[in-house]
């Protein structure tokens, strides 16, 4: 099913009329019965005003960056937008296209048969990069193993360059709310497994994933793979500041790296945040994974009694084409040895700082 993904980036402590913005958004998504939604808590980042949010300092970690996604049909997201835009909130919001290969009962039979064809035909067929996102529950199992472990192993066996497992803290699945609680099993709280690769191997994986998962919910998005392990494969999309109709265009750069990757002895993802914060970037958000793999290494997570963390990190920067081009020069230099860098075209975006919001 062709879908639209609405993503909002804001602060964990942002409030609207006394209620937390995260709660407010998820409540809207729940009321509207959104098919797929996940709320992620970031580890570090900054927004339009370049205020640093980081889990490295205890006092600052009470207001971390958060990302809320909502995925549904274009008509339903459009209806939802009326509610979301009515909220007086700050932060950044994007709309992107995605293909959802779901398992809702009514479409199961026809869609499962067509998943491979759909996945391959999605937006231009072979020869492009794809971002594959697999949604599983925190305690979901495949055979006798956790689902995220089984999925990562399959992706690793099929030779994908890497995968990152991101833990959600709240969300919806087929319209049903799945929120993490402090003392609970949290069995259905969403986890997203994100992997990037060439179109054909990813498309070939979709039916295999659909077979092993109880209720597969798989998303495909178009990306351009710019760099892998230090090698420049392709420059990011060269976009004009506005398209032919005069609509503003936006660009998303994502760096997939390891938490323990370094550049000149400094942590790679923290160095990207530090340098971009010193410049004029619109904002950057880092999200830590809790499991994953990169290259030939078997999938892994953190171990007991270790100093460095062995988990994947996603560093996301969304900006105007002009600033994204400048950011890429910086990212290119920092990812001389490590990291996978992708570029995506973001058809619509709205960014507001607290000051701009109060001026409206």
């Amino acid at each position, binding site marked *: 099913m062709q879908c639209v993904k609405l993503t909002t980036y804001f602060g964990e402590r942002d409030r609207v009329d006394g209620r937390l913005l995260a709660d407010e958004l998820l409540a809207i998504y729940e009321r509207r019965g959104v098919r797929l939604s996940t709320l992620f808590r970031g580890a570090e980042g900054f927004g339009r005003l370049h*205020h*640093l949010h*980081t*889990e*490295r*300092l*205890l*006092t*600052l970690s009470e207001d971390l960056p958060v990302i809320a996604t909502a995925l549904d049909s274009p008509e339903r997201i459009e209806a939802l937008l009326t509610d979301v835009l009515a909220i007086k909130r700050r932060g950044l919001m994007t709309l992107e296209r995605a293909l959802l290969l779901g398992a809702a009962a009514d479409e199961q039979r026809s869609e499962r048969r067509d998943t491979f064809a759909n996945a391959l035909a999605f937006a231009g067929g072979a020869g492009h990069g794809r971002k594959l996102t697999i949604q599983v529950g925190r305690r979901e199992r495949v055979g006798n193993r956790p689902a995220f472990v089984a999925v990562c192993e399959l992706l690793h066996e099929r030779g994908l360059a890497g995968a990152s497992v991101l833990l959600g803290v709240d969300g919806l699945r087929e319209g049903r709310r799945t929120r993490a609680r402090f003392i609970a099993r949290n069995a259905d709280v969403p986890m997203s497994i994100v992997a990037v690769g060439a179109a054909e191997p990813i498309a070939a994986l979709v039916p295999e994933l659909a077979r092993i998962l109880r209720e597969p919910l798989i998303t495909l998005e178009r990306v351009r793979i710019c760099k892998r392990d230090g090698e420049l494969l392709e420059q990011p999309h060269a976009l004009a500041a506005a398209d032919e109709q005069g609509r503003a265009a936006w660009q998303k750069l994502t760096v997939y790296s390891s*938490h*323990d990757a*370094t550049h000149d*002895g*400094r*942590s790679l993802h*923290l160095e990207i945040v530090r340098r971009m914060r010193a410049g004029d970037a619109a904002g950057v958000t880092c999200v830590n994974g809790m499991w994953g793999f990169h290259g030939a290494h078997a999938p892994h997570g953190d171990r007991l009694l270790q*100093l*460095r*963390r062995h988990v994947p990190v996603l560093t996301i920067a969304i900006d105007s084409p002009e600033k994204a081009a400048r950011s890429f020069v910086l990212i290119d230099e920092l990812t001389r040895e490590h990291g996978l860098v992708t570029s995506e075209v973001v058809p619509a975006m709205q960014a507001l700082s607290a000051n701009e919001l109060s001026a409206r």
Partner: protein
Amino acid sequence: MSVWTWLGVALLGGVGANARFLIDGLISARAGAALPFGTLVVNASGSLVLGLLTGVALSGDALVLAGTATLGSYTTFSTWMLETHRLGEDARARAALLNIAVGLAVGVAAAALGRTIGAHA
């Protein structure tokens, strides 16, 4: 200790924790995350004041309320340790050792300075 002292400890403990939250937050937001300066300032200023209080020979309930309750919750050993560990996780072993050494040196010096000032006041 009387019931009033217990209540005082609970109340002033909260005041100390809030003061730390505000001061650490203000400093951290400005100083960035290169080194945990907020925690350093909080621990150093707390050590200075505690030194001062013992220097003026404050004792009994007054010392419990001002020292143990207020300054005890204002300063933080655990945050100092946690943030040092985080520096290690982020490939910054030298900064981690520096954070320990500077925190220790500045803290002891602040306490000694406080005591000296207090004793001569």
